[in-house]
């Protein structure tokens, strides 16, 4: 890696023939994203993974009969809003890193690196996939909840607008971060273990599934650093009646703070993701790929 190179470009000018027009990665990326979505829809196992979250949220909501303490809002609504936030969070910070690690290990990243415009197309495809899956499950959850368990829906244009921007900003906060995590995780087997615990811990501590005020203050403060709490709070403001803000820690929705924290995470995610993804792609080579496969086989994980 280190060392000096004596020369770089060598001699004979004009030996490279002029290349025909370059294509934008958008087209290939969107095509790719479309194909990957089709594969997802045809894969019952993976599809049921996404749907089981929705089912779990509906089951919990159907069970809860109480109101959020100090308000007239059904507890079920708080849970639905919390799960909605968690769905976005999970797609960005759990599913996406796993996809990236798996595809890196299989060699998809290397193949695209060896293909002109392959890496940008890959990123476009993954963004499309993640956004469609996240928004798709969110719509499914809210729709099914509204139909089956009398779930919450935004009231008026303001509510819908809040739902839209919190969802958008929430995805921007978690997707680049998830990409950055996916770029550094060692392999798919360890990825699952490394991701599961923090994601679950945040689910419990972020006030997504029960009021955050029932948790000890230090836990509340710790959870406030991470985006899930703010995504859940933002979605509650969009989905629950205004009076429900009495149950919030600050007694209000703190929407400016929601925007601020999520934007900060989005910026941080982008700052991390760009160099880390670039590094991950640059480091890919055939021998690295073989070395990882050998390691996987030694550790007993079936590669096929």
């Amino acid at each position: 890696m280190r060392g000096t190179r004596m020369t770089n470009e060598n001699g004979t000018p004009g030996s490279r023939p002029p290349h025909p027009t370059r294509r934008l990665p958008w087209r290939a990326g969107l095509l790719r994203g479309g194909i990957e979505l089709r594969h997802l829809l045809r894969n019952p196992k993976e599809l049921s993974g996404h749907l089981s979250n929705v089912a779990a949220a509906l089951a919990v909501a159907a069970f809860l009969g109480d109101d959020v303490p100090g308000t007239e809002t059904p507890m079920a609504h708080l849970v639905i809003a919390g799960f909605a936030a968690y769905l976005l969070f999970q797609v960005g910070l759990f599913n996406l890193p796993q996809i990236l690690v798996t595809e890196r290990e299989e060699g998809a990243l290397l193949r695209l690196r060896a293909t002109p415009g392959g890496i940008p197309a890959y990123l476009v495809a993954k963004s499309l996939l993640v956004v469609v899956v996240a928004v798709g499950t969110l719509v499914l959850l809210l729709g099914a909840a509204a139909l089956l368990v009398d779930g919450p829906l935004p009231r008026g244009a303001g509510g819908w607008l809040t739902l839209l921007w919190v969802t958008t900003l929430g995805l921007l906060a978690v997707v680049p971060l998830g990409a950055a995590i996916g770029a550094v995780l060692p392999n798919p087997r360890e990825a699952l273990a490394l991701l599961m615990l923090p994601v679950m811990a945040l689910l419990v501590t972020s006030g997504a599934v029960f009021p955050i005020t029932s948790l000890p203050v230090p836990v509340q403060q710790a959870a406030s650093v991470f985006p899930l709490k703010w995504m859940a709070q933002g979605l509650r403001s969009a989905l629950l009646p205004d009076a429900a803000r009495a149950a919030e820690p600050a007694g209000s929705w703190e929407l400016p703070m929601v925007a601020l924290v999520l934007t900060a995470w989005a910026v941080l995610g982008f700052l991390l993701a760009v160099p880390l993804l670039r590094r991950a792609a640059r480091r890919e080579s055939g021998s690295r790929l073989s070395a990882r496969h050998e390691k996987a086989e030694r550790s007993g994980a079936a590669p096929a």
Partner: protein
Amino acid sequence: MTSHTTARPVIQARGLTMSYGDVDVLHGIDLDIHRGEVFALLGPNGAGKTTTVEILEGFRRRSAGEVSVLGADPERGDDAWRGRIGLVLQSWRDHRRWRVAELLTHFATYYPDPRDPAELLALVGLTGQAGRQVDRLSGGQRRRLDVALGIVGRPELLFLDEPTTGFDPEARHEFHVLVGRLARDEGVTVLLTTHDLVEAERLADRIAMLVGGRIRACGTPAELARRAAAQAEVRWTADDGTPRRERTADPSRLVWELHRDATGPIADLEVRRPTLEDTYLHMVHREDGGTGGDVDGDGDREAQAA
């Protein structure tokens, strides 16, 4: 096959050196590979084949030396340069959920002038598997799909990394026919890495033997075989009953001298011309023994001078 002197080589390396920390992996490799040539880089595992090829592919930064691949420094290869290179690795297991034709058609969209995916499937003998999911292919079919993906963009240069590992003899034969056709009919330059001497002899116009980070010999299979056979080994049993052996460039003279000095027939007399394989194994062995003399290292310079 060394007659392409007018055109600039597709791959040119001078003094290519690679070290990881204090360990030197490549000690100044010189290479010239010309358009339309099938060039085999032969060597045991750990000889530096992979490192050499990954530097040429632009996936690894060299420590020193000059390298030009398709007229550019691989460390600075841009997308247009990438588009002129095809890659077939042995370790690819990607896109398992995709269908064969779907994958090939998709990868065609990245290139300005791709091959027709249907024709390409016919070329690699996968027409019958067009609708099959990639992870349902056999090992040989998977590799042929990798070849198809490697050439879908009409590359001028194709890297093949241990391409037939795990092939049955028939699949291997079909693969050799395909590579030969690409080079002959379409002028694709092929750089093949292998540790299989038979495959190198069968496929390559020229072979370079890379042992211990140095090119020990380079030339056409015939040249290498001739050079290998130049030192014949004469064996016989001496009068006192001890087995003797001697290496000589002129076995006929040695045998004549033996007969001249002998009183009768010579017991167990045998003249052996070493095969290319003997030479290769000898080189590999010598390297294992630790003596790193650059005895055959002038081979590549000979070939370049032609």
